[in-house]
């Protein structure tokens, strides 16, 4: 019970940072101090100043405005990638756990195989066939999340399908589809929500890494990872160029991690 105040503090701090991230992303759709894409030959690689609080990049673009716009890319990729991973993983887990037998065994081997493909590897493969872009990032990261959602759902289904309320519903004539969607799935939601929250920062890190490698978001679209790739060539001339986008990633991920930890402690007292 002594953990509760700490869980609340972690959750509150995480929620505050996450809300700030969402607010910055939302604001950037309406207002940025400068156009994130407008170049200025005379104002290249400037350090922080009143006019450009985060300085400017190699094309004279305002880094603060690009960091703000980059938040939209990170959130969009995070939401869609986690959505893809959760949708496919939950479907596989429900089927595997409920049907059991050889189908369960086969699907679990498939899930083991998918686990061998971290987002970077999937993105490498997809980029060999499709043009690199934000879409490739979303799919590659989403696929990397499938195993964890599938295992979590399967575990919950195995535990729930023998519970009294499920057995009673089956005895009352409920069909498989109703049993799965009305009785079993809603009871697996709490751990799934926690998993989605903890997967979100991982998606943001993966999106940044893919953009950095040139496999994700493409220039001139603002992405934190892409900005770091561009900054690497100018580390000696303007180190701030690398500091602010990296700081934005770390702050966003920190907030989401804290939110996930706090949520897990609050929703699942066993882990607290």
């Amino acid at each position, binding site marked *: 019970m002594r953990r509760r105040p700490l869980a609340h503090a972690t959750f509150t701090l995480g929620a505050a940072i996450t809300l700030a991230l969402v607010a910055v992303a939302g604001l950037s759709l309406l207002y940025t101090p400068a156009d994130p894409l407008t170049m200025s030959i005379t104002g290249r690689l400037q350090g922080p100043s009143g006019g450009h609080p985060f300085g400017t990049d190699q094309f004279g673009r305002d880094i603060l405005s690009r960091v703000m716009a980059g938040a939209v890319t990170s959130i969009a990729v995070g939401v869609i990638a986690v959505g893809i991973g959760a949708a496919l993983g939950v479907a596989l887990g429900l089927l595997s756990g409920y049907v059991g037998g050889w189908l369960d065994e086969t699907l679990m081997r498939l899930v083991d195989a998918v686990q061998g*493909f971290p987002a970077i590897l999937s993105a490498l493969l997809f*980029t060999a*066939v*499709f043009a690199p872009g934000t879409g490739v990032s979303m799919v590659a990261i989403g696929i990397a999340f499938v195993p964890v959602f599938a295992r979590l759902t399967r575990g919950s289904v195995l535990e729930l399908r023998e519970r009294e309320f499920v057995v009673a519903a089956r005895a009352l004539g409920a069909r498989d589809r109703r049993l799965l969607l009305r009785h079993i799935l809603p009871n697996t939601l709490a751990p799934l929500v926690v998993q989605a929250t903890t997967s979100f920062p991982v998606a943001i890190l993966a999106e940044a*890494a893919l953009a950095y490698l040139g496999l994700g978001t493409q220039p001139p679209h603002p992405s934190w990872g892409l900005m770091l790739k561009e900054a690497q060539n100018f580390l000696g001339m303007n180190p701030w160029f690398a500091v602010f986008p*990296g700081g934005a990633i770390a*702050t966003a991920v*920190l907030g989401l991690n804290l939110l996930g930890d706090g949520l897990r402690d609050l929703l699942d007292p066993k882990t607290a």
Partner: protein
Amino acid sequence: MRRYAARRAAALVATLFFVSALVFVVVRILPGDPAALIMGTEGSREASDRLRESMGLNRPLPVQYVEWLARALRGDLGRSIQYDLPVGELIASRLPVTLPLALMAAAFMVVAAVPLGLYAATRHRRAGDYATMILSQIGISVPQFWAGLLLILLFSVTLGWVRSGGFEGWSSGVGAALRSLLLPAIALGLFQAAVLVRATRSAVLDVLREDYVRTARAKGLSELRVVGRHTLRNALIPIITVAGIQLGQLLAGAIVLESVFALPGLGRLALGAITARDLPVVQGVALFIASTIVVINFAVDLVYTVLDPRIRYE
């Protein structure tokens, strides 16, 4: 134990079959013609047709897959279009960079994380514990490639102690080669170390609550003996599991760090192959890395059951 190991080995074979099928499916079945992709816009239709014929792309897909798999099992992953060399040979030539990088990162991870996790657990809910947890939270939040850039900024650009990238090569001496890999290994291992700190702390805390630890303390054993002899040994099982799984992730992470530090490893080979539309190399590297990760995960699973026999009886 033998029966359990045989069952796991059968599962491993099935999983590796799926790995190979996934690699093949992505490159061959997804929209797009590999021959046209390789030839690009500058290739004529006749040249694409000839390439398709020589790559065996005119045959039915299941036949292509079986032939590709049979060759891969013999170690023949095809021929690089860019280098005109066997893909297996190219992968082997890059392993002396990627493998030591991943192993050094793993060593850094264990050396940094296990003592810190142990320290945090023994200082539970005291300043040392909170400081370690804040450190690990930061470690988990910092992208590996940004950590790499910051290390370059500090040690190369500002202090001028080391080069900002490149690989000296093993021929110029073990010391020089290891020095080239030091910063990348630290940047690569930082995130995994932060994860392992949390896992170690949690595992040690679980064991510290056990009755036999209370008994050991009641007997008057020193705290060092209680923690080192009775606690850590029993907490090692989950720690080894997490560390083993992290090892597979380090291989994938190496792809990014090789780019940051301009290291000629597997990741840079694959990224270069994408630019050159060298599909056999991309396919070969993906198959190699994914299979290695799967084998590591299964090995960890097996080690886990050897260390804790209760698992195979459940």
